[in-house]
């Protein structure tokens, strides 16, 4: 009996020594390191005892995996406030960055709904900037429902953490811009710092185009600021081109031709709208170029049509017939040169490519087509 008491006493002493050092030193405990092999057997009982002192929710959140994290979403939505610090501690110990990032939003949404001040204080315990930005976004999404002005003011005083501040500003703009686009446009254009101004204008343009792509395109046509104009045009394209079947491509392109600056017309028609139009409706795209063949900035679209039709056409005659509708000059040359290259590239009789090339005057496009044809007809050296 005395020996047993002696053993128990000394085991307790080991446990006490362990606890004195191992107890959590910070409010948010974030260890994930496994115990070493050497200490594992000796401490098996002690760690069990230590683990028992960790709240169950913390242990559960720390062990979440990509396979089971989603099960916790409902539980988080009903967590009492006293459990949220443990949930956050556990979450920050989870091994998977994706799990941490997905659930931290839910945890902070719940926290902000119950006690916003406590949620804002808890941000300080999050070391990852991305995690912190996600947590702040969650708080702001709740805050703007009751007092958007206070949320803007709070983010405005975050100067000591400019990265978090910018993330907060963009989140707030996303949440509130839609209520008064003109007001936020004026505000964003007055921001001095150019990179931040640009980010805000892009955020604004995305909101605008998401709400009403037609109105965003209209705003772009009248916008003086080149950054916002480009952002509106890009955002409009991104939102419109997702609805391929309902997009009225000719009408959108007609409006783009009204852009006052040629550089804008060239960039947005050539790089965005025309390639998508050709991919989705090549016949209609060809007809649209024909109907505007007097516009010199459509030289590149004519070349794109040439490549597309040259690869698909079964007869040279159909290509000759199409090209003849383009008046003599850059558009016609660009069309025939690219049609010849497209024809040759798809291994059709090379005489057809020559026939098409004969319709084309001297130009860079012709030189490039000749190089492609040469490549196609030159036999590859046998290995």
């Amino acid at each position: 009996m005395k020996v047993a008491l002696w053993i128990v006493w000394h085991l307790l002493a080991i446990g006490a020594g362990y606890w004195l050092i191992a107890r959590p030193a910070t409010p948010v405990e974030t260890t994930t390191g496994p115990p070493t092999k050497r200490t594992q057997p000796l401490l098996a009982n002690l760690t069990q005892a230590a683990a028992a002192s960790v709240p169950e929710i913390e242990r559960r959140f720390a062990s979440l995996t990509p396979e089971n994290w989603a099960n916790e979403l409902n539980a988080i939505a009903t967590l009492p406030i006293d459990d949220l610090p443990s949930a956050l501690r556990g979450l920050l110990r989870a091994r998977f960055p994706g799990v941490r990032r997905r659930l931290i939003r839910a945890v902070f949404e719940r926290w902000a709904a119950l006690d916003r001040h406590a949620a804002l204080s808890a941000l300080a315990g999050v070391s990852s900037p991305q995690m912190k930005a996600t947590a702040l976004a969650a708080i702001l999404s709740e805050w703007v429902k009751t007092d958007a002005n206070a949320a803007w003011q709070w983010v405005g005083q975050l100067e000591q953490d400019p990265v978090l501040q910018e993330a907060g500003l963009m989140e707030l703009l996303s949440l509130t811009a839609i209520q008064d686009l003109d007001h936020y446009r004026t505000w964003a254009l007055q921001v001095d710092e150019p990179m931040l101004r640009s980010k805000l204008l892009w955020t604004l343009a995305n909101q605008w185009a998401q709400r009403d792509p037609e109105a965003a395109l209209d705003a772009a046509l009248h916008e003086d600021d080149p950054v916002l104009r480009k952002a509106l045009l890009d955002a409009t394209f991104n939102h419109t081109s997702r609805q391929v079947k309902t997009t009225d491509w000719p009408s959108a392109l007609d409006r783009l031709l009204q852009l006052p600056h040629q550089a804008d017309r060239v960039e947005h028609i050539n790089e965005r709208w025309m390639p998508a139009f050709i991919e989705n409706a090549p016949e209609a795209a060809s007809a649209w170029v024909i109907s505007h063949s007097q516009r010199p900035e459509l030289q590149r679209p004519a070349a794109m049509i040439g490549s597309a039709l040259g690869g698909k056409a079964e007869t040279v005659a159909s290509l000759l017939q199409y090209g003849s509708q383009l008046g003599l000059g850059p558009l016609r040359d660009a069309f025939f040169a690219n049609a010849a290259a497209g024809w040759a590239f798809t291994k059709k009789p090379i005489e057809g490519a020559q026939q098409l090339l004969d319709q084309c005057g001297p130009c860079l496009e012709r030189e490039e087509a000749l190089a492609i044809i040469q490549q196609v007809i030159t036999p590859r050296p046998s290995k």
Partner: protein
Amino acid sequence: VTWLSHPLTTTALCLLLGAAVATQQRPPTAGVEVSDAAPSEPPLIAPSFASHRAAHEWLLEAIRSARFDHIEALFRPESGLSISRQLDLAGDLVQNYRRIDPRVVGRIVLRLPQERKSIVALNDLVTRWCQDDAEEALRFLETLPPERLNTILLHNASWGLSQLPADRLLMFAQRLNDQGRAYLAEGLATFAEQSGSWSNTSLALSRLDPKPEAKAIPFQQQLGGNLARTAPALIEQHLAAEPDARKRDAWLTGYSWVIGLADPAAALPLDARMSHPETREKHLRQHLTRWLKTDRTAALTWLMSDAARASLTPEQRQHWLQRYGMEAAP
């Protein structure tokens, strides 16, 4: 010997033993701790796979059931898996990065021979990890050997790293050599318009002060591109204050490249300001080509103008005009 068996002494020794064990286990500070420890023992000899598909399916199943120690064992020499299959599977692991502990993937990739596939896998892993959790990923980067760290990997990582405080970045930069610092600066400048905060990034860039490195793109070039549309006046300020002709050319290169994408005509005067003859010639050629293919009439008119005479030699003008069957007037 008698004092050694005294209950007070043995109790104190037990307390110390407990404390020593706890010290070994305790994490150093707050934040998510990165463990570089390999699993304690290899759990199995890898199964043999008839095809890459079979190996891939085994891997996915192991990921689903979180058998990361089994996955790690698969990449050990004794598993018998060929290096080429290990390299392919490492790519699959990185594709599934969000479903695995990234530290496990990092350890696996670093053990592979340093060749194209493992380099791509490491770059992809670091890029994604930095985007999800830059602080945790940075601690992994700090464990990399110099030959794996001071590479273009730092460019890709910069999207996520730019969100860390400048002081933290600069502390990390002390580990880098000149090439590493140049890649980090290149990346920070590249993503300055999209990620982080300019006040934070510009502070880091000003203190990094990287030397020009042959493999890295000068950060001035990346900034020139980023500011071209948003703040051309700011670029002009930098150009006026920059005494180094190579750095001025780098600013102009980024500036004219972005402007020239939509408006090659506006880029030509910027090209003409470049001091290095080959750089100037290369950019003039690119922009003239672009202009001639987007609005030939306007480009040919310019080639006949006084502005072209000021920017191009008579031979250059003749070269371009001849390709359109035209003659250059003196």
